[in-house]
């Protein structure tokens, strides 16, 4: 009996959280003119019997479609370059003993204690001076030096036994070889976790793309979607289809790497 009521309570809460998304998906499958047709709440508010993909095909040729491609490009670039930068740095911190290591580590920690959004406005003035507005470089750069990712990777690297490194050195590996052939292959879970962190940072960003990428060629998904919504004659079918695409892409990535996502989330808070 107790289990049944707990399960029912959980179900009600879960469905309440899910309803807005279900509503968005349903409305993305019907013409924008019908968005407010089911105002009186009924089952039709959340289900469409004659779904059409019209909004999605319209999305392809719209600004939001192009902006979504930009988001994919910028996020992918951020993950690749960011992982290279963060992993080498974490290796430098984990594999060597040198004077000032504590200081360097302190800088890394300090850098992620300063919230990025708070410094986005001063940083955007600097980027304007360097003429990086409306460039992909300008959009990608702030995402690649992620102190939290360095911190996570370093924690993982510290667990790699010194004997392995010594053996590798005796076999004639240089330091880059040790990094490339010993550390990286052993660290896949940590690299995936850090990669997810870099991806989500960039995919969810709003303040920075709003400040730096405003022309049609460099606008990112969330900014384009909010512009669309701001227009008086907004086609809500298009708005909903865009919202679905911008949510499904990270959802697929998170679901694919679910195990590592939970690991990276919990290790930021608990360890």
């Amino acid at each position: 009996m107790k289990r049944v009521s707990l399960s029912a309570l959980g179900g009600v809460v879960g469905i309440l959280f899910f309803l807005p998304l279900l509503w968005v998906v349903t409305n993305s499958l019907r013409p924008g003119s019908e968005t407010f047709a089911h105002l009186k709440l009924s089952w039709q508010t959340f289900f469409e019997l004659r779904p059409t993909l019209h909004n999605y095909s319209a999305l392809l040729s719209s600004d939001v479609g192009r902006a979504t491609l930009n988001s994919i490009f910028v996020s992918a670039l951020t993950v690749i370059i960011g992982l290279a930068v963060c992993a080498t740095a974490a290796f430098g911190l984990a594999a060597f003993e040198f004077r000032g290591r504590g200081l360097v580590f302190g800088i890394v920690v300090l850098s992620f204690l300063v919230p990025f959004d708070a410094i986005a406005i001063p940083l955007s003035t600097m980027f304007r001076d360097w003429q990086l507005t409306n460039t992909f470089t300008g959009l990608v750069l702030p995402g690649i030096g992620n102190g939290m990712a360095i911190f996570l990777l370093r924690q993982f690297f510290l667990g790699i036994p010194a004997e392995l490194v010594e053996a590798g050195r005796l076999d004639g590996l240089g330091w880059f070889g040790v990094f490339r052939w010993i550390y990286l292959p052993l660290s896949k879970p940590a690299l995936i976790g850090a990669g997810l962190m870099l991806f989500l940072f960039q995919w969810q960003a709003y303040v920075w793309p709003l400040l730096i990428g405003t022309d049609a060629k460099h606008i990112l998904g969330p900014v384009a979607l909010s512009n669309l919504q701001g227009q008086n004659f907004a086609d809500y079918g298009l708005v909903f289809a865009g919202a679905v695409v911008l949510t499904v892409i990270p959802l697929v990535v998170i679901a694919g790497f679910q195990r590592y996502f939970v690991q990276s989330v919990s290790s930021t808070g608990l360890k």
Partner: protein
Amino acid sequence: MRQRQGLIALAFLAPALVCLAVLRIVPAISAVVESFYSESLLRGGRVFAGLSNYTDLLGSKDFRQSVGVTLLFTVLVNPIQVVVAFLLAVLFTQKAAGSKLWRTLVILPIATPPAVSAVIWSVIYRPDGLGNGVLERLGLPAQPFLTSSSQVLPSLIVLLSWIGVGYWMLFLIAGIQEVPVEVREAALLDGAGPWRRMVSVTLPLVRRPLAFVLVADTVSNLLVFAPVQILTKGGPNGNSNLLMYDVYNRAYALGDIHVAQAEVVILVALTLVIVAGQFRLLRGDQ
């Protein structure tokens, strides 16, 4: 040998250090420095202005209202989100049918980018949107939501909780699952009821993740921007003019970049004070 190691380590560290310095630390310092300057038309350029940007801000009624709204919002949103996240974490770690599925439904919205969530809720909160549809079905009168001075903050809190609660719940679920089974069984054998078990056993044992969630949640809520910019533009009557939006508005709509930098400094200082206070409180009663 050590020195050689240092040089090699530096080579590996250099790209990241340059990024962190240029993209995080320099702008933070530059905000502080620029906040002491102002643009002078007469003398054609940047002149040292001392504390005048700060005194201008403190003298401005709009700014004082923005601070007040931000503090009120902080005091409301953080306890609500942390308590809800904790209760949901407890609920979803019970043995009950469908727990995993229901939990996933609560977590789903964290995949939606905040700006996209704001767009979705802008349609929900329309006078003819889903929000009033639900109220009507419950037999309640239609509400103005975002256009009402008294409803705008609660409306934002609901939207932000929809986005955030699942995320914070993940940390707390991880924390609860680390509570050893023996401890829970011992409490059960001692005849502690569910409420007692939650307050005296679970709660003290998830102190650390709970403290982390409270602090991280507070920081993220002090920086809320997208929902304000997309949904309310700070209105009505400045009642949702949170500091982060006020900074943006000052820098780009009003073009007052130096005063905006001073406001960034105040915002970060405020964040640090609140976070430090929370750390103290949480350590204090241990």
